[in-house]
């Protein structure tokens, strides 16, 4: 379970995230919905221990974000942005193995995991090849495998489909659904209503650093008497902009 408690982040005079709190139950997919610059990436970066919160903390599977950052990191896997962030001169296997080792796995365990992942993501043909000349879809698969190699119980996805073509988007969506079926807890940020509607159980709408609504998708639709999530979002954010 993830429990975020009054978390804020200030960059000099700018308040990027302003006193946000929310809970994500185990096995649920939580969608963080907001415009560009709303504070989604900063929130996820804080939860992934990359940035230190200015105030507040979070409890991630029993570990305190501030007190036990290394333990928190052991529980999470991340995939940030549409760019895959791979080492071009390493093979797909070497890329995945590197992150497995840095997450404290043994070479034997990594090898078993890579076999499993390369089968499920259909990467067997190119697992030994250097990733430099891979297509975007192939790279995306390697990045997905890398993020999950240490079998984390929690996954953070920050706009994982931005800039991807339809095929690559489908790969990512399928992957997230599979993780959900395996019972992993997922926080997923996006500015695409469609994506959130397709994948999430609960949604948090973030605007100018503030969480303006946290509810289930059904709850949101019921509250606003509106089926179209985009309309709900515009009316919510529009109100705040006025």
């Amino acid at each position, binding site marked *: 379970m993830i429990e975020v408690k009054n978390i804020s982040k200030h960059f000099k005079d700018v308040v990027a995230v302003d006193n946000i709190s929310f809970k994500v139950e185990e096995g649920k997919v939580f969608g963080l919905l907001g415009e560009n610059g709303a504070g989604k990436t900063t929130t996820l970066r804080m939860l992934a221990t*990359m940035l230190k919160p200015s105030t507040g903390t979070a409890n991630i599977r029993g570990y305190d974000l501030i007190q036990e950052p*290394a333990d928190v990191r052991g529980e999470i896997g*991340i995939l940030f942005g549409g*760019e895959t962030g791979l080492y071009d001169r390493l093979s797909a296997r070497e890329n995945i193995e*590197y*992150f497995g080792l*840095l997450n404290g796995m043994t070479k034997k365990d990594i090898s078993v995991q890579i076999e499993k992942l390369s089968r499920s993501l259909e990467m067997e043909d190119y697992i030994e090849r250097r990733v430099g000349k891979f297509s975007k879809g192939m790279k995306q698969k390697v990045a997905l495998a*890398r993020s999950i190699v240490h079998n984390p119980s929690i996954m953070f996805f920050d706009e994982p489909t931005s800039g991807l073509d339809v095929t690559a988007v489908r790969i990512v969506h399928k992957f997230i659904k599979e993780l959900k079926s395996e019972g992993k807890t997922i926080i997923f940020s996006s500015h695409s209503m469609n994506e959130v509607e397709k994948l999430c159980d609960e949604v948090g709408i973030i605007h100018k650093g503030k969480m303006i609504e946290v509810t289930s998708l059904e709850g949101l639709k019921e509250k606003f008497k509106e089926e179209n999530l985009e309309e709900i979002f515009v009316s919510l954010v529009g109100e705040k902009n006025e």
Partner: protein
Amino acid sequence: MNKFTKIVFKKEIMDTFRDKKTIFSSIIIPIIIFPLIAFVIGLGSSDMVKESKEPVQIALLSEENNGLEMFLKSNDNVNIIKTKDYKKTLDKLEAKVVVKIGEDFDEKIKNGEKPEINLIYDDTSQKSEMAKSRIEQIILSYTNHIVVKRLENEGINPQILEPVDIKSSSVSKEGGTGLLLFSMLLPFMLTIWSAVGGIPAATDLGAGEKERQTLEPLLTTKANRISILMGKYFTVVLAGIIATTASLIGFLIATKINPEFLGESATLSIKSIAIITLVCLEMALAFSSIELAISFYARNFKEAQTYLSPVSILLMVPAYLTMFVDGRAVPEYYFHIPIINTIGIIKEVIVSVYDFKHILITTGWNLVYIALFLMITVKMFEKETVIFRN
């Protein structure tokens, strides 16, 4: 080295040395640069040496037959070019010098007057200048002959003109000029390479990692930041050491290509090599961390290259300043100045001066810099404003 540092180090070494750019700038360039210089210098100087061994080509302007003309014609070191237009011949450097012998030359010599000899040459041409000096020497031997004759006619021993007998011999056991060049170039080269040899690797491991967007996933692994940083740091140090070794290999090849470049006999003892290795390693350890810090500060690869290029220029200043410092007389205070102290130590051991007080002072200072630079680098790597600057 802790477990995670080792993992990062091993991966970075593999990644770095699969990069053609790094191999080119850290291994190939340092290996070929000195042989190339030696080859070019060899080409130029061997042309000059060849020229100096051949008879000097002159054009002669003389009104009548005289003793000097006869002397020059019979001299094996002189080749007289026949010409009508001496200016053209000189322009084309067919004749390197034109010797113009004044009127009534023999008559004037006989009467004790001073006949004129004009040497016309081109002072913008090194070959013409060299030929002028050679022909001057040849004419001088002719005039000396006249002086001796005159003195003998007066009944004076010509030896009176040489009141002392000057003999010179060098105490240097080996090397000589070669060793002098060796002691000028080797410290310069070793210090520079051990400090800047890691720059290509540092650029890739810091700013390159940011640009590829691989830094974020790296920071969310179980490995803490210090372990990641140290793994990268040791990679940059090793790249610096490899570049230094490569340049040393290049240096040795250069001496084989053109022995006159540095002197064949310039050798180093095991003790000297050990001391040089120690101070160069200290340089690599100090500079690698500061290069990595700059690279992490940069937003991208290009920015890192812009920030890191002044490091090389900064190093050139002390390296040039100390180029002509004598290894046997390095001022004491030099050993308290960064970079200069390292050059000072290398200069000393090349001429077999082993002053352990100097080595201790230099190492002491270098350790202070290593600690200070590492502290700055760790602080920078922990700063969110640096890591997420872009």
